[in-house]
């Protein structure tokens, strides 16, 4: 078998050295009843590459790919163009097959790119420090709430109704078992929520997303002040990282913690994962931050280098008293993100953001001309909500049959909410062509 280097001769020699007749003797501590006599029945035996390729390619062929049709889905994951350079570099074995940088002398590659990543995330979010990434935006959000609870010594989190439901639900799961309270608002497709009014002396944080799940862009300045007045932290959530190339960042609006999803840069959609949690905060909170942190230092020869630092917050040292149970970050995804962002640079990233917004405006203009639909989002980045006047999921399914992936029905994200059945979330990026937009407009026009 191609992945197993030991030969039969090797095995015999090794058994002789150990002093047993067969490998089965090495398993003698396993209860007899649990020792299987041979390979598990009912499972196929080994296959060559050709066969595995054929099997998996057949599965892949059963999916409709975003690039093969007019495509308008967003809802927390966005289709962007990743330059060929990024994936090519990502596949270098020294990045792909490296371990966590616990031995920094031989991991300076990983440590330097993560330090650059932390620096970039701090710049994008307008915050003082960022960590070396989390599993995804939703878990980063939940961890941010836990951090706010620890820092304020309170246990009641206020969540905006327009926070992505997966982020809300992930936080709610942690709340249930960790014993804190969340107060989640109802979805507000028109984009208006009174969050300041919900803050009291027991509130640890307010979690608000911008652009929100319906696409609305929010100015958080007033809310930040309201939070500060009551001693609560403002947590801003950003699910479309490219928006930070054009919009005033949450850090500049007074956020205490910014979390988000980095999938937009460097990573394919990949049916939902693996993605990349972004986590940034004010410097005064660094000892309460979850996740890995890379710090700069010098070596014994005085040369600059980088190390994992402030590890005493983490589970392998504090055990029960750890800030979180997290063991890993999303290293390779962080590398993809940082390489893509480095390739873009200042002008490329800001141009990309402008291009995304312009494409979405262009789409909105074309759709806005259609009778039978209404655009609900006045201020947006690259995603907005339309009311199609009938069940949006049926519209999406019909259009899918015609070869158009029209967007995310709100009911897909909010299955239990009333009054959202006719709403459709549509996104446009630099990948969206005018022909795509015309196809969608035509398709909707025929249906509505």
């Amino acid at each position: 078998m191609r992945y197993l280097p030991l030969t039969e001769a090797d095995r015999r020699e090794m058994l002789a050295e150990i002093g047993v007749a067969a490998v089965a003797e090495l398993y003698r501590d396993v209860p007899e009843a649990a020792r299987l006599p041979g390979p598990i029945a009912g499972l196929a035996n080994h296959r060559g590459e050709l066969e595995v390729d054929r099997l998996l390619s057949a599965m892949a062929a059963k999916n409709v790919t975003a690039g093969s049709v007019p495509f308008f889905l967003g809802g927390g994951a966005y289709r962007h163009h990743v330059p060929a350079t990024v994936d090519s570099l990502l596949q270098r074995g020294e990045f792909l097959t490296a371990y966590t940088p616990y031995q920094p002398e031989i991991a300076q590659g990983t440590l330097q790119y993560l330090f650059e990543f932390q620096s970039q995330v701090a710049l994008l979010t307008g915050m003082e420090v960022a960590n070396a990434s989390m599993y995804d935006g939703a878990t980063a959000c939940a961890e941010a709430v836990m951090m706010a609870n620890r820092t304020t010594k309170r246990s009641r989190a206020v969540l905006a109704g327009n926070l992505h439901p997966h982020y809300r639900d992930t936080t709610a799961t942690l709340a249930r078992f960790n014993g804190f309270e969340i107060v989640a608002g109802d979805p507000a497709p028109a984009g208006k929520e009174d969050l300041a009014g919900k803050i009291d002396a027991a509130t640890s944080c307010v979690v608000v997303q911008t652009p929100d799940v319906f696409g609305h862009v929010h100015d958080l300045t007033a809310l930040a002040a309201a939070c500060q007045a009551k001693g609560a932290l403002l947590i801003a959530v950003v699910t479309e990282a490219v928006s930070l190339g054009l919009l005033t960042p949450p850090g500049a609006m007074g956020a205490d913690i910014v979390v988000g999803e980095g999938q937009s840069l460097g990573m394919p959609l990949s049916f939902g994962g693996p993605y990349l949690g972004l986590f940034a905060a004010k410097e005064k909170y660094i000892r309460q931050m979850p996740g890995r942190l890379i710090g700069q230092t010098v070596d014994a020869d005085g040369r600059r280098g980088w190390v994992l630092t402030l590890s005493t917050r983490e589970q392998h040292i504090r055990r029960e008293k750890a800030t979180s149970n997290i063991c890993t970050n999303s290293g390779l995804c962080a590398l993809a993100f940082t390489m893509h962002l480095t390739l873009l640079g200042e002008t490329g990233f800001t141009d990309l953001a402008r291009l995304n917004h312009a494409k979405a405006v262009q789409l909105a203009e074309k759709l806005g001309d259609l009778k039978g639909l209404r655009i609900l989002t006045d201020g947006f980045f690259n995603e907005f909500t339309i009311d199609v006047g009938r069940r949006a999921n049926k519209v999406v399914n019909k259009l899918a049959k015609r070869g158009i992936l029209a967007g995310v029905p709100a009911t897909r994200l909010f299955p239990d909410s009333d009054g959202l059945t006719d709403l459709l979330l549509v996104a446009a990026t630099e990948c969206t062509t005018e022909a795509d937009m015309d196809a969608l407009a035509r398709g909707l026009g025929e249906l509505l």
Partner: protein
Amino acid sequence: MSQIKFTKDHEWIAVDGETGVVGITDYAQHALGDIVFVELPEIGREVSQGKEAAVVESVKAASEVYAPVDGEILAINDGLTDEPAQVNADPEGAGWFFKVRITAPAQLDGLMDKAAYQTYLEGLV
């Protein structure tokens, strides 16, 4: 009259009437290695004998510093926040952690004096 007492967890308390200054011993700072951070209690906080009053972190470990006796925190050594290395350099002097008003003075009788602590250390390997 002032006296110094020691705990099995390597804390010392320098008693002066109703108050005491608390820190960790030279043995403890040596075992921990380079101290990188000290988390001190808030002034006014009530502490209980044997319960966590402060945390001291080195690069590889974090250790609780337990209150040697019941009391109320009167003062903390702010300087440790910027210069945690003082704990290594002068653990039984400038590296003190906090000052406490002793509310259960009888507990001091259960602690070791300098000679007893030395003997105790020799017993540890």
